[in-house]
């Protein structure tokens, strides 16, 4: 039954959106980080989606995360000469996370996730209806 493909497609989209939500969480958590694990200021991460064929044929197209890119925006420079991480001019390089952008990203990801859950539920109820064909009331 090819309605099962809808399950695959929607769940791939849910996985992709939750990865996006994950990057949002890590970006927001590190909004005020000075150094990342590699010694450089933390850079905001964004996921890049890609359509990918799923199930048989051209009809079903799921989503997958092709790559995670780091934002190229310049680090936020804050003048704080007392900070041990300050450079010789007294500036500290904070992460380049744009909090407003991340919040809109979060809302968009959560809405998209919800919609895909709904699509999956619709497919499920259609399949259950199909199973009821020919049953006596």
């Amino acid at each position: 039954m090819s309605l099962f493909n809808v399950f695959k497609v929607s769940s791939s989209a849910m996985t992709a959106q939750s990865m996006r939500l994950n990057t949002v969480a890590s970006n927001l958590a590190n909004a005020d980080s000075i150094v990342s694990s590699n010694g450089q200021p933390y850079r905001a991460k964004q996921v890049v989606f890609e359509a990918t064929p799923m199930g048989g044929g051209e009809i079903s197209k799921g989503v997958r995360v092709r790559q995670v890119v780091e934002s190229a925006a310049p680090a936020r420079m804050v003048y704080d000469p007392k900070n041990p991480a300050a450079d010789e001019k007294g500036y500290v390089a904070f992460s380049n996370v744009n909090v407003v952008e991340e919040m809109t990203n979060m809302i968009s990801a959560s809405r998209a996730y919800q919609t895909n859950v709904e699509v999956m539920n619709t497919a499920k109820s259609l399949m259950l209806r199909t199973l009821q064909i020919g049953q006596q009331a």
Partner: protein
Amino acid sequence: MANIQSHVEVYSKAIGLRVQRHQLLASNIANADTPNYKARDFDFSAAMQNALAGRAASGAMPLARTAGGHLSGEGMTGSAHVQYRKETQSAVDGNTVDMDVERAQIADNAIQYQILTQLIGDKFKGLRSAMAGTQG
């Protein structure tokens, strides 16, 4: 009397197309945030006419077989001619999925599917009552 399969043939063709359309619309919704994804759909009534006439879609391009060993290929998906949706307000990243349209269409498609399951069920109910008619 014709066999039972032909009794529900029209409905089963329609339900097959509805399933195809549901897959398409689910793919559109899944890819609502994918850069350069173009929303796709097909004209249901045209596809239904093709299915009833037993022909492939007008846009179908079956592979030419120039040697006996070649496999036949459909090229397109049966009677449904899948097309890109007209752009209304596409995003900067080249995505043309309009969430409102897709959600409305998928709700419509789901209702039509349920109508078809109901109609097929009624057909079987009719057969059942015809068979049980003399048993009081």
